[in-house]
């Protein structure tokens, strides 16, 4: 758990590159339990890279700075250790796994997390009970459960599935990477509404998005604008509306000054 008085997540001067190209050029961010932070910014500003780096994608190299999560050096942990410690990434492009049912995949994941927490692993029947409860909590059904993981899923189904996994795994820090991309307005309402229902005082959410509209359903406490690998502007939820109205150019212009 987070030491008393310390933030859940503290990112200091984080630099990261992919294939030798520097993408993040000094990110500073503090996230406390109970908060929702929106990370916005134009294409190519480094939003998704930040999400991937926090989750530990091996293609990205951290070249400087530090990330502390619940008192631990997050960058020292393997991706699966981060996941078991409660860091969850809702993928922009969820990956398909042929021949493995969603239910089996999710139970395996949950049991890996539970084992790490010192909890008993769930057998298939216990898991189904838990699943039913979680599905209800986010107003979903089990239509996806017996299909292979993300295989042949529509865009909306994939995103809904990510949030269902999030509901079952109960992360303390959830990072949503452009969860709104590719969703029509109804699907967006369903998916974002589910995320909002999972908000609790002891968890935190980072919403990475290009557009303001998802924030109509998940009200952020803070909005940060990322440009060229740095946070150039932070504000409250009204900042998102301003960005929606005025675009990103003025932020870039101000940042350049």
């Amino acid at each position, binding site marked *: 758990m987070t030491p008393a008085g310390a933030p859940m997540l503290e990112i200091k001067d984080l630099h990261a590159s992919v294939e030798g190209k520097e993408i993040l050029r000094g990110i500073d961010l503090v996230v406390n339990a109970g908060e929702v932070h929106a990370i916005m910014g134009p294409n190519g500003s480094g939003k998704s890279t930040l999400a991937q780096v926090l*989750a*530990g*994608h*091996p*293609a990205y190299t951290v070249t400087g700075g530090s990330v502390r999560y619940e008192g631990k050096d997050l960058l020292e942990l*393997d*991706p*699966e250790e*981060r*996941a*078991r410690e409660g860091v*969850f*990434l809702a*993928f922009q492009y*969820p*990956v398909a*796994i*042929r*021949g*493995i049912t969603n239910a089996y*995949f*999710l139970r*395996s*994941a*949950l049991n*890996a*997390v539970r084992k*790490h927490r010192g909890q008993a692993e769930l057998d298939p029947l216990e898991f189904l009970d838990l699943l039913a409860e979680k599905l209800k909590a986010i107003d979903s059904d089990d239509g996806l459960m017996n299909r*292979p993981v993300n295989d042949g899923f529509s865009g909306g189904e994939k995103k809904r599935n990510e949030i269902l*996994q999030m509901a079952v*795994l109960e992360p303390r820090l959830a990072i949503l990477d452009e969860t709104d991309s590719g969703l029509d307005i109804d699907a967006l309402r369903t998916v974002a509404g589910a995320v909002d229902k999972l908000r609790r005082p002891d968890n935190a959410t980072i919403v990475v998005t290009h557009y303001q509209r998802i924030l109509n359903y998940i009200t952020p406490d803070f909005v940060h604008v990322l440009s060229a690998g740095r946070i150039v502007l932070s504000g409250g939820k009204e900042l998102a509306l301003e960005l929606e109205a005025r675009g990103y150019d003025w932020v870039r212009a101000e940042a350049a000054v």
Partner: protein
Amino acid sequence: MTSSIEAQVLQPYKYGFVTDIESDEVPAGLNEDVIRLISAKKREPAFMLEWRLKAYRHWTTMKEPTWANVKYPPIDYQGIVYYAAPKQQKQLDNLQQVDPKLLETFEKLGIPLAEQKRLAGVAVDAVFDSVSVATTFKETLAQQGVIFCAFSEAVREHPALVERYLGSVVPYNDNYFAALNSAVFSDGSFAYIPKGVRCPLELSTYFRINAAASGQFERTLIVAEEGSYVSYLEGCSAPMRDTNQLHAAVVELVALDDAQIKYSTVQNWYPGDEEGRGGIYNFVTKRGKCAGRNSKISWTQVETGSAITWKYPGCILQGDNSIGEFYSVAVTNNRQQADTGTKMIHLGKNTRSTIVSKGISAGRGQNTYRGQVKILKGATGARNYSQCDSMLIGDKCGAHTFPYIDVRNSTAIMEHEASTSKIGEDQIFYCRQRGLSAEDATSMIVNGFCKEVFRELPMEFAVEAQRLLGISLEGSVG
């Protein structure tokens, strides 16, 4: 990512121990005297010796095939011991007389033969080097008229059946390795399912090579009479040795009207070490004949072992409406090479065949699918569906696909699908982000890839197959 996966420590081959037992071997080398000696040791009737000699004489005129996509140094056929048997005082009447060392060996391999520990629902014929050492549940099977015994016993006890069907599917001159096998085959299993009987147990043979310089040349013959059904499984393993050993087996299946044979293989011969030293050359001819109407033969194989695999279990679909199936998972890791696939020969009307092949290559493994589908003139209304999927793990391995299709009847319907995928960094990362280790992630992805084949295996063996797959890929994947 791949490099970190590949850097992981290789899981050693778990079945590589040697049983210290005195062996009765014939001198290395092959000539007519050796064949006469083998035949005499087995107290065979004259027709058997004649057949062996005919095969041998033909073999001496043949050349080793070179068309397969595999590479190995020349085999010294005169350096091989063609018969090796654990020394036994006399003919056995029951299991109590089997050398405890042999029972222990099979127990270590997970194949208990002792009465009280036997696998429920599975009758096992245990073959050690050149001979069958024990067959379980013989009496239970005999009550239904099912014959399940060592091949050499069948030659003595049921010579008429053997003479009638031996070579009827794979003739002695079929190919180089089949001819060699026909000349020197030592033992194997024989099963006969009488008319209308659904065999009450799974039949299974476990092959173990132990002796150092010996080859293994077993022969299996299964005959399913009208309206009968049998499910048969074979497993195998060998000690770790740094020289290569030849295994050239022949399997013949005959299904008469309305009969069904399901033949499953979990092949785990010693694959050699990381550098490709040692390992079994697995050069095998397997063929089934759907001789009767509405008959069905289904091959399922999980090939994880052997330094080199050369095998094409096929079906001759002679009876009208007969069905042939081939489901295969072949894994090559380190320096393993596999050239495997099937042959489906459609002769009868409305015959159908299904081919599902999954090749997985890791390390420097080379995996080739080679399949032939032939629709002959009389095969009106024949159908074939083929699906060949390859998965690559790492960037030093290879996957190759050679489908041969020969259609001589315009009513035939052929479907062929093929795919090649690389086990992706993103796929593994996705699983790890959900809390699964890289190793569990890989095993899950690979098992998902092989699902269509695994579900064809009998339950007990599907679990074993999944476990084996995990072991074979450890070290090359995360």
